[in-house]
Every structure is written in C-alpha cells, then in structure tokens.
C-alpha cells in the first residue's frame, strides 16, 4: 500500500493538480479571511474553515478525486495495478490516503494565516486545530465520494461534475441530510469535537470506500 501511496502523492505534484488544488484553496481561504477582517472587523478561524469547507471543497475535491481511477482506466494503467499481486483494497486505500495527504498539505498552508494573526493578537490554537481536524475529516469524506464516482467512469470531466453534484446538491437543497457533509461540520468550527459528527463523517467515508471496493471487484467480472 505504501508504494501506491507514495506514487500517487508524487503524481499529484508531477501534474498540475496538486498545485491547482493548493492555489484554489488559498484563494478562497484568503478571500474569506479578508472579507471577515475588513467587513466584520473580527476574525474567527472556525468560521474561516467552515466557509472554506462549504465553498472551497466543492471545487478542490472534484479536482483531486477525478483522476483517481478514471485516468488509470482510460490510459490502461489499471491493468498494471490489477494484475499485480496487490489487492484491490490496498490499491484503493493507497490512493485514498495519498489524496487525504494532499488535503493535509493544503491545510498546512492555512496555518500561515494563524501565524499572521499572531502578530496582532493571541488566537487560540486548540479550537483552530479542532477546526482543521474537522475540515480534514469532511475533505476525506468528500474524497471517498469522489473516488467512488471516479471508479465508475473513465471520463475525468464527468467524474468531476458528478462529484460536484453529489457534494453540492444535498447542501443546496437540504434533501438527503445523510449525504450533506456540512451537517456534520457544525460543532468542529466552534472548537468542539462532537462524537456524532465524527461518527457520521467516518460512516460516510467508509460507505463510499466500500462502494469503490465493490465497484472495482465487480468490474473484474463485468469488463
């Protein structure tokens, strides 16, 4: 799994995807930071992460997840993976953790705003870290959904659009609250770790990862 993880993580930075994801995140994060500071005259790191998760992840996650399996399938490199002695679970987890690590790197960039604030005031570190943890969990859940979509199509654009729809529609319409990730990111921004939110995000993550495993297993007999 480690070899797949390393190769996948490297691939994000050998292609523009890693840089584009970091750029978009920093743009949205900065914009919300500026709006909060200049219009409200106050800062709230929790609120900053909440709004970035709500609007930024809709764009960042499809970019990260669209290539996970679609690209392999289109280029035929899927054959190299699936005829190796590695199990499908290993392959999926390797790819999933590499994408999650990219989000960790993205989050690490957000800490520079914390450092900037430290020059002017004393922002509390604990709640900020909890907000970041929640952000990471929401992002990982969204990645699992994107990974599932990527496993069912070989067209990266379709994978990205469907992932966007899957993340955006439940939040926009309020329908299917179970699929609305933002419902499970209410207490984290306030600096609280809620067991119910952690469990629901983990359940979402596990559900879509299992779906991906099932799809990949099934493709062996269908394709």
């Amino acid at each position, binding site marked *: 799994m480690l070899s797949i993880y390393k190769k996948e993580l490297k691939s994000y930075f050998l292609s523009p995807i890693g840089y584009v994801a970091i750029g978009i995140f920093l743009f949205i994060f900065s914009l919300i930071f500026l709006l909060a500071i200049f219009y409200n005259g106050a800062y709230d790191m929790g609120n900053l992460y909440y709004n970035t998760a709500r609007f930024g992840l809709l764009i960042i996650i499809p970019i990260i997840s669209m290539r996970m399996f679609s690209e392999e399938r289109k280029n035929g*490199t899927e054959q190299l993976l699936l005829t190796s002695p590695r199990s499908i679970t290993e392959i999926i987890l390797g790819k999933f953790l590499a994408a999650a690590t990219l989000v960790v790197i993205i989050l690490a960039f957000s800490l520079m705003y914390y450092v900037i604030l430290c020059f002017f005031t004393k922002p509390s570190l604990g709640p900020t870290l909890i907000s970041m943890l929640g952000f990471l969990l929401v992002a990982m859940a969204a990645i699992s959904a994107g990974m599932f979509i990527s496993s069912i199509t070989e067209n990266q654009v379709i994978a990205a659009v469907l992932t966007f729809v899957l993340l955006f529609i439940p939040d926009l319409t309020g329908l299917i609250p179970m699929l609305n990730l933002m419902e499970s990111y209410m207490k984290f921004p306030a600096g609280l770790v809620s067991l119910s939110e952690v469990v629901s995000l983990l359940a979402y993550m596990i559900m879509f990862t299992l779906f991906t495993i099932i799809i990949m297993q099934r493709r062996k007999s269908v394709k």
Partner: protein
Amino acid sequence: MIEVKNVTKKYANITAVNNISFDVKDGEIVGFLGQNGAGKTTTMNMITGFIEPTEGKIIVNGYDISKKSKKAKKQIGYMPEGVPLYMELTVKEFITYMAELKLLKGEQKKEDVAKVIKETGLTNVQNKLIRNLSRGYKQRVSLAGTLVGNPEVIILDEPTVGLDPKQITEIRSLIKELGKNHTVILSSHILSEISQICERVIIINNGKIVAIDTPENLEKKTKEKNTLFVTVEDPKGNMPTLKQRVPQIEEIKFLKDNEDNTKQYAITSNIQLDLRKVLFEVLPKEEITIFELKKDESSLEEAYIKLIDSDKQEQTSNETNENRKNKKKGNKATKEEKEKLKEEKKKQKEKQNEEKAKKKEAKEKEKKEKQEEKNKLKEENKKEGGKK
C-alpha cells in the same frame, strides 16, 4: 505451469471466449494467433487475473488465479496491449514502481531494477520522462516493467506492434532469450513472428480454439499435396510427357520461360511422396538438365488461413442450418398467426354487421314511431276541425 480448463467469458449476450482448454509447460514459448477480436486479449486478461472468467478454471504454477490470486499473480509478468505506462514518471521510477507492486523490497528491488534496465537496453534513458521517449523505447520500458521481479510466466500481448523492423528483430530475439528461463505466452496476428519465436501455436477464432500444435505440424496438417518447383533446360520438350515415365506425378504445370532458355514447372504429387530423388534420376535420362529443384514450403500463413476458413465454413453451415430451422418455425408461426388474424377479422365483421343491423332496426322503429305520432296528430287535428 499454466492450465486453462473449460474457460468461457461472456459479456451480456456476446461470448468472447467459448469453452477453451489448453496447457502450457515449463519453459515453453506459446503463441496465440488470431484475427482482431478473436479472443486473444480476453484469454490473456483472464490468465493474468485482470478479468474473471464466467466459467472454468485457470491455474498458474499450481495456484488458482481466482482463489489464490495473490500467489498466482506473483508468478506472472504481464505486458498489456497498447503499452500502458505512467507518462509522468521517469523510466527508472516506473520500473521501481513496478518492482514495488510485485512486492520487491530493499536491495533485491534495486538489483532487479538495475538488471532489467540493462537487459532491455534502457541504461541511457533511465532518467528520462517516459512521455518523451519514442514508441520503441516505450515498448522496452513496458517490457522491463514486465520482467522486473523475474516472474516465471511472461505474458506479452502483441509485443511488437508499432515497432520498426530493427526494433522488431531486437524484441523477438529478447523474447527468444527469455524463453530459455521463463514460460512465455505471446499473442500476435503476425504469423511469421509466431512461427519464428514459438514452439507451439494456439489458433483462436471467434473465441474458440481452432488448433493447437507446433508451427511445422500445422503446416503439414493443412497441406494437401506436395509441390516441387523445377527449373530445367529441356531442348527436346520432354517435360510435358514426364508423367508417363513417373506415374507418381499427379500434375505437371508449366509456370514460365526464363531469359536463359530454361523453363520452370510445378510438379505435384501425393503429400506422402517426395519425388526429388526420382526426378534427379529420371530427368537426366530424358536429356533434361536440372538447374533448380525446390520444395514448396507452404507457410504457416496458408495453414492459418485454411484453419480459419474451415472454422468459418463450419460456423456458417451451422448458422444456415439454424436459420433454416428458424425459418421453418417462423413459417409455421406466421401461418398460425395469419389464421388467427383471419378469424379475428371475421369476428369483427360479424360484430360490425350485428351492430349495423341493430342500428337499422332502431332507426326503423324511430321512423315508425314518428309516423304514428304524426298520424295521430293529423287525426286529432281533423277531429278538432270537424267539431269546429
């Protein structure tokens, strides 16, 4: 080494591979031969565990590919069709990644990667990005990825497609070398390639195995007659009457006049007879000088075409038989349907007639009633007029 037992692969209504069985022994080089879409790649994909057969078993070095896939896959190096590669990696990175996928670690991994890079002649380009390489080098990189980890079974799907003649000969000699220490299965639709490299040929057509044999045996089996090409100087013109002297000759066919006053003939005889010795003895006695005597080496290509054609003929005859049966069934069905339709039409007409008759009756009744009412009114008016 590899046992394929009654394997079938179906996609919805299409049967890509239909109940094939064969085995490949240790250290053998076996070639899959077939037209495009014959089922070569599907069979290879099933042997490598990329897809699962709908029915049947595949055993690689004692491990069932469906049940003990990890152990079975460890024995296999697969070079898929179309040379899929990670273009963003360098040659060395790609081969190292392939080694890691095959569970190699530490020093062994480094040694194996270096060895394979050397074997496939990639030393000069090992730090180049794969996307910047030529087609031939990409093919070599793919082959290197297949060979890393020293797998016992090597499966190559059309390994020489898209290469120039020099690269083709290089790859072929490399495959021959591999055959000394590995079991090799390769697919191709290039017949000469198969006959040059492989010890045994499996000919597939429409998902079925048409023949399994050595290239030489396949040629022999499909040959019906023995043909000799003779170039002679025949000043007295005795060649056409040679059949009388050598009764084993079935036919003497004049082919061409050469510039040096020699003539070329094709002499055919029974497949079991070799007339070369006899001709060398008889022709000088007839004052015919032999310039050249050559046996017709019927190529594997002819054997292949004959086998495919005979398979096609069988299939078409089966299909036509089925079609005839279906047509007969269809005719019976249509007759029955026509009769039913006729009956239905009759019934409908009868109903319509009944309805019309009822309507007429009703109208007549209405008319009668109206007339009666009118008559009554007239009578009443007359009576009233009389009273007045």
